[in-house]
């Protein structure tokens, strides 16, 4: 193998591809070369000079972070000279560093602190006056303390290269060099906090977490973000029963260390003062507090009575509840209430996609495919606004592997800046534009097609036909809005499809009412809404309907309820969720909000009161049932419990669809909104960025 070289590092013979960077080759061989400015996947800087090593025949120490390995190279990484040089660099770094570690948010997680510990540059010979610059607040989220900054330029690069935002720059020169925000004294950006997370020291800190605690005093709970459909792992830092931080520094999820503002900061709804903590019932037109027992009794009684009379139920499920909850809900509704009047707010036409693919395995792209496949086509979606992780992965794919990206959207999107072709096409007319790219796409070795909500019904089938006709390997992503939109469909929270997209006719019953049909039905007796806000913009037609709502807040829908049951959020329960790519992942409970119950528990309590032959359930048991019964969900439970993500393909064959394009509508959320829940995330509303109009760069 001519393109591999052999070299020696600290006496160890190592083989590596020619041209690989010494720092990586050494790290892979288990030899850690310290570095501040080097960051895997970002542009090379060679600025911190911590990675200096001895290379035989070189007259001076060389920076391992920019040194390509060559055959026969002999490297020493921990000689006295090297250690002395590193110590010297640390001594230089500390000259203008404030050494306020005891009050610094980064204390205990600081790479500078660790390096000083390792190389022993603790006491400085510097006795001059330090440069002083006051701390600056750049946004509600981002604070910058210039003297702590070691100018590794990681933040600048992650913002520019990683996000494509370029909100951070470098100003002045020499010792007065500083990082600066793009709007003079403040930031206008995605507020994703990646810069804070990537900062090796406490120069960039988060307004959300500042001075709240010391890192080692927190409990860290890795769970899945409850906002968009991308399914990022967020590790919640819990202290004193409160979530005070979100990040993913252990890089254990599909998102590696990426998080957007929602995954990183929008956990504050959990502790929002408006959170419902007691069941409410309507008495004399007023909602009054009551006990769980009384509220559940009332609901169970009403449900049994309506069921007994054979009257009309309407049940609306959630895009954010777990697979287990969704699965149990549909069982409850179909077997317990005897109806198929079950639906949820569908934010993309995954039903049509699954039908069009007719059980073809491997045709759905996993999130990793967005980083690995050679080409991608984005149809009718503002990825950077609505699917931050997917946008990040695609951009990284372009940066690292020169992936070729095509865009067909009604308006400008951030992806235009690196796309090989961008075509503007009005909403609903994208397919003609896609057709115009046929030759270029057919020339690609493989392709991932991502499509938004305006590609629905018949158009999904045509898009898949188009993909099939290209004669190359094509994978699809149907873009869905929320953390478990996909799971809601997979688990059969639909009037016409059972879990795994099996048609309800198979069970002998006719399909039920769709969501708008329920709201329109003048004779609806019960409307049961779980974690959804269908009455946000319209009224319920049936004046007589008894409305039961399970939710976190007193939403517009809850305000119309006869009984409100305060529910636990995703951060307060275990279970699984499935992201827009179909990857199933596990939620872990971070905190408990007294007075609330998980939807699963509520279902169980209601079932018992109604004398139904099922429940109570434990999430783990339901999960095993899902694995056994829902096609495509038979993924390894142990690995899932360990925090993995597994692609599911939930349909075994062709099924018919009733194209109802009018049912498909994205909520149009942006980086700074998250449906009704977003209203209760103070962080999202405190940043000064406009909530980002779609299709505007």
């Amino acid at each position, binding site marked *: 193998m001519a393109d591999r070289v052999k070299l020696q590092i600290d006496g160890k013979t190592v083989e590596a591809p020619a041209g690989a960077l010494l720092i990586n080759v050494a790290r892979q061989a288990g030899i850690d070369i310290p570095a501040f400015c080097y960051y895997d996947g970002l542009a090379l800087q060679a600025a911190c000079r911590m990675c200096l090593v001895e290379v035989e025949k070189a007259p001076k120490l060389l920076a391992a972070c920019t040194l390509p390995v060559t055959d026969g190279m002999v490297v020493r990484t921990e000689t006295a000279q090297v250690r002395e040089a590193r110590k010297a660099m640390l001594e230089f770094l500390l000259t203008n560093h404030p050494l306020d570690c005891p009050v610094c948010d980064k204390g205990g997680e600081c790479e500078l602190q660790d390096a000083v510990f390792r190389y022993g540059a603790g006491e400085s010979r510097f006795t001059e006056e330090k440069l002083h610059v006051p701390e600056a607040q750049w946004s509600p989220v981002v604070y910058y303390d210039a003297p702590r900054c070691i100018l590794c330029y990681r933040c600048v690069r992650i913002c520019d290269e990683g996000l494509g935002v*370029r*909100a*951070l*720059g*470098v*100003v*002045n*020169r020499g010792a007065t060099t500083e990082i*600066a*925000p*793009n*709007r*003079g004294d403040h930031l206008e950006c995605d507020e994703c906090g990646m810069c804070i997370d990537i900062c090796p020291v406490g120069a960039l800190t988060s307004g959300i977490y500042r001075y709240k605690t010391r890192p080692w005093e927190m409990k860290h709970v890795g769970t899945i973000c409850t906002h968009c459909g991308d399914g990022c792992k967020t590790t919640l830092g819990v202290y004193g029963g409160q979530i005070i931080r979100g990040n993913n520094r252990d890089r254990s999820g599909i998102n590696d260390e990426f998080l957007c503002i929602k995954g990183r900061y929008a956990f504050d709804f959990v502790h929002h003062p408006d959170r419902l903590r007691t069941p409410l019932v309507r008495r004399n037109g007023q909602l009054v507090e009551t006990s769980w027992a009384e509220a559940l009794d009332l609901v169970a009684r009403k449900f049994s009575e309506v069921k007994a009379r054979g009257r009309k139920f309407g049940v609306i499920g959630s895009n954010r509840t777990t697979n287990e909850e969704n699965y149990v809900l549909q069982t409850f509704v179909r077997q317990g209430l005897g109806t198929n009047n079950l639906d949820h707010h569908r934010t993309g036409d995954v039903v049509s996609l699954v039908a069009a693919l007719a059980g073809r395995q491997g045709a759905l792209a996993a999130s990793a495919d967005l980083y690995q496949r050679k080409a991608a086509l984005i149809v009718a979606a503002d990825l950077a606004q609505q699917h931050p992780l997917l946008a990040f992965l695609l951009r990284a794919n372009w940066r690292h592997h020169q992936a070729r990206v095509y865009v067909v959207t009604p308006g400008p999107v951030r992806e235009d800046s690196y796309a090989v072709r961008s075509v503007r096409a009005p909403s609903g007319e994208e397919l003609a534009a896609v057709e115009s790219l046929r030759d270029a796409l057919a020339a690609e070795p493989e392709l991932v097609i991502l499509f938004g909500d305006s590609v629905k019904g018949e158009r999904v089938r045509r898009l898949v036909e188009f993909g099939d006709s290209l004669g190359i390997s094509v994978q699809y992503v149907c873009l869905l809005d929320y953390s478990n939109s996909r799971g809601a469909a997979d688990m059969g929270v639909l009037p016409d499809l059972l879990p795994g997209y099996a048609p309800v006719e198979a069970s002998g019953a006719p399909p039920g009412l769709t969501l708008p049909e329920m709201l329109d039905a003048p004779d609806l007796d019960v409307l049961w809404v779980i974690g959804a806000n269908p009455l946000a913009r319209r009224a319920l037609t049936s004046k007589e309907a008894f409305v039961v709502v399970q939710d976190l807040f007193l939403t517009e829908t809850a305000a119309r309820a006869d009984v409100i049951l305060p529910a636990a959020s995703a951060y307060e329960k275990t279970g699984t969720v499935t992201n827009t790519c179909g990857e199933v992942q596990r939620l872990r409970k971070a905190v408990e909000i007294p007075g609330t119950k998980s939807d699963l528990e509520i279902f169980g309590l209601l079932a018992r009161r109604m004398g139904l032959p099922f429940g109570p359930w434990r999430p783990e048991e339901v999960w095993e049932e899902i694995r056994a019964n829902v096609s495509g969900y038979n993924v390894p439970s142990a690995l899932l419990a360990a925090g993995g993500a597994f692609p599911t393909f939930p349909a075994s064959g062709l099924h018919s669809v009733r194209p109802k394009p009018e049912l498909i509508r994205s909520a149009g959320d942006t980086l700074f909104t998250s449906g009704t829940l977003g209203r209760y995330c103070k962080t999202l509303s405190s940043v000064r960025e406009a909530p980002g109009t779609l299709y505007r760069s």
Partner: protein
Amino acid sequence: MTFSPQLEARFEKLLRSYPPGRQRAALVPMLLYAQDEVGAVTPEVVEEIGRRLGVSTLEIEEVISYYSMLRRTPAGKHHIQICTNISCMLLGAEELWEHACRRLGIGHREVTPDGQFSLEEVECIGACSWAPALLVNYDYHHHMTPEKLDRLIESLRKPQ
């Protein structure tokens, strides 16, 4: 904002100097030439040049704050830059500098109240063999002494 026809012509020539798609290369010259005409790199100048070159304000700020000749507030009508680097220092540049400060009653990067003069202590200006030297705007004055500086200031004060 608008620039003089001469400056526009200069800009036009500049923009033709660089390979296609590389017009950003004109940034530093454009900023400096605009400063010469406007007196400073004002926010309006930044915006206008940024617009013409398709460069963000932040990127221009990065550049302005790097180059020592670019400034955000106007200098005096006669901007006196005194080199105190080694060759000039050896021949009395520091004394010359102090003399200038006393004489004009201003310090480094300051402007006299009448806006006539400003002072700047600068690094080597490439006149070492004819030290001590200074620049008034872009004109070199070599072999300076405090007395010669006084005469120079007097002659500049006179309305031309």
